[in-house]
């Protein structure tokens, strides 16, 4: 299969255009973070060469809405992860290692959970949380996220488990370890790439989610960084400088997490696809 030269040229031009479309909003977000508000209005596309400023970020960091929002988002994201990662890893271990009807049904159940859009289950979730007196609490939001993303965790972990030799379980059992110990001491440490992917993706989703915290936490009871941005836009006219500062601060933590875990990330998502 050889294609004429001109198709090859168009192909790379096409790639450049597509990349540019994807990069444009990122570029706009990044350059305008470091420009004063009037410069953003006048020259939104310009690089912050002679009017470089960190005042936007500093200003945004001063806002109590932002401070409060970052703190709440951090609590909710970390709480959800602490609950969801160990539970989904253990569930995946059971579902993929024990060959029983119950295990197969559970797997189907989890896969079904993976297909549900969050908006569909949001209202029923609030009903349950209200009965448990967990509406408008951190715990309510955390439980909502942990439960909703559990199937995703099970899916990634059980895929990865296929590449972890069963002989290791057997060796552990013969060495006298209980199933729980085999899991925590032998299997879980070996799933680090999968754990990293689950953490990054789930952290990103919970951090960026807008609807669940808005409804479950309720704007009057607490804001996450996403609902905070929403409120900031409404409350303080349009200060573009501050807006960009807030957005910058909002995306920084997840970006840092991704950079920190990225070397495990790709191998975790594809792990189990082929036999290592």
């Amino acid at each position: 299969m050889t294609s004429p030269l001109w198709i090859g040229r168009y192909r790379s031009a096409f790639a450049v255009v597509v990349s540019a479309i994807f990069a444009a909003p990122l570029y706009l977000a990044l350059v305008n973070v470091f420009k004063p508000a009037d410069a953003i209005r006048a020259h939104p596309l310009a690089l912050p060469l002679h009017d470089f400023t960190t005042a936007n970020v500093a200003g945004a960091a001063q806002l109590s809405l932002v401070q409060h929002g970052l703190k709440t988002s951090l609590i909710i994201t970390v709480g959800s992860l602490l609950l969801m990662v160990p539970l989904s890893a253990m569930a995946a271990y059971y579902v993929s290692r024990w060959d029983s009807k119950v295990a197969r049904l559970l797997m189907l159940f989890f896969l079904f959970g993976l297909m549900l859009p969050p908006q569909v289950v949001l209202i029923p979730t609030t009903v349950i949380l209200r009965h448990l007196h967990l509406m408008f609490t951190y715990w309510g939001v955390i439980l909502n996220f942990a439960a909703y993303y559990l199937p995703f965790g099970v899916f990634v972990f059980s895929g990865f488990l296929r590449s972890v030799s069963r002989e290791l379980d057997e060796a552990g059992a013969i060495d006298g370890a209980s199933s729980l110990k085999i899991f925590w001491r032998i299997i879980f440490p070996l799933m680090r790439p999968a754990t990293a992917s689950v953490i990054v993706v789930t952290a990103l989703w919970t951090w960026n989610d807008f609807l669940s915290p808005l409804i479950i936490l309720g704007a009057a009871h607490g804001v996450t960084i996403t609902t905070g941005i929403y409120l900031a836009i409404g409350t303080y006219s349009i200060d573009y400088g501050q807006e960009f500062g807030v957005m910058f601060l909002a995306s920084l933590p997840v970006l840092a997490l991704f950079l920190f875990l990225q070397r495990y990330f790709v191998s975790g998502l594809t792990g189990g696809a082929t036999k290592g």
Partner: protein
Amino acid sequence: MAQVEFSEVTKEFAGGVRAVENLNLRIDDGEFVVFVGPSGCGKTTALRMTAGLEAISEGTISIGDRVVNDVPSSKRDIAMVFQNYALYPHMSVFENMAFGLQQQRLSKREIERRVRDIAQLLELDQYLSRKPRALSGGQRQRVAMGRAIVREPAVFLMDEPLSNLDAKLRVQMRAEIRGLQREIGTTTIYVTHDQVEAMTMGDRVAVLRNGVLQQVATPHVLYHRPTNVFVAEFIGSPAMNLFEVPVDHGRELVLDSSERMPAPAWAVDQLSGR
């Protein structure tokens, strides 16, 4: 220290495949018995039932004086060497060997002492802090052995432990494993498909075919007095020549019109006994 006894042991997998059929065998305390046979003969299944990794469909297996059918692997007081070694990849050689001892809740000092002793015995002392991936195949094999020996179990179970080594190392390790086992005196069941390995290592060799035990005997007896054609063909390298001859008066083999040969005494007994 313990004897192992298989008593009418049968393994039937889901779907009706019978991997082991009515196995009766007593392995004495300190004995080294090799299970040998072509692949799919049930030797590994028999070993895994002993280890508690497969359920026993019928019959009983006892280790020492205890029937272990319902005892989980972790409580059977056995150690196993796997074909692919199954070393814990994220643990150092020391941690690999110490893991089983930690489960027995031995003191840190006792664990340290026993691991170091065995590491010295196996010439692994300078590798204790390495991860398995930084070891050669032969060294990994030694670690797998060390992990089994350090536990001082009642029985060693070895599942083709040498089949991933190169030919030269395999011969060397053969002698080494046998020497170690004599020194320690632990009852051992060793599974292999390699009849040379079986004949050079076993106190006794059990030949299996399609899940049925064909013969169990010392290598010498197995070689000179195979009970059936399958064993005769399977044992010996190059393979034994087989042909049919008429027997005259129950005591003379008729090779051709002019040449005859007296049948060996044991064959005469067998023929007249029929």
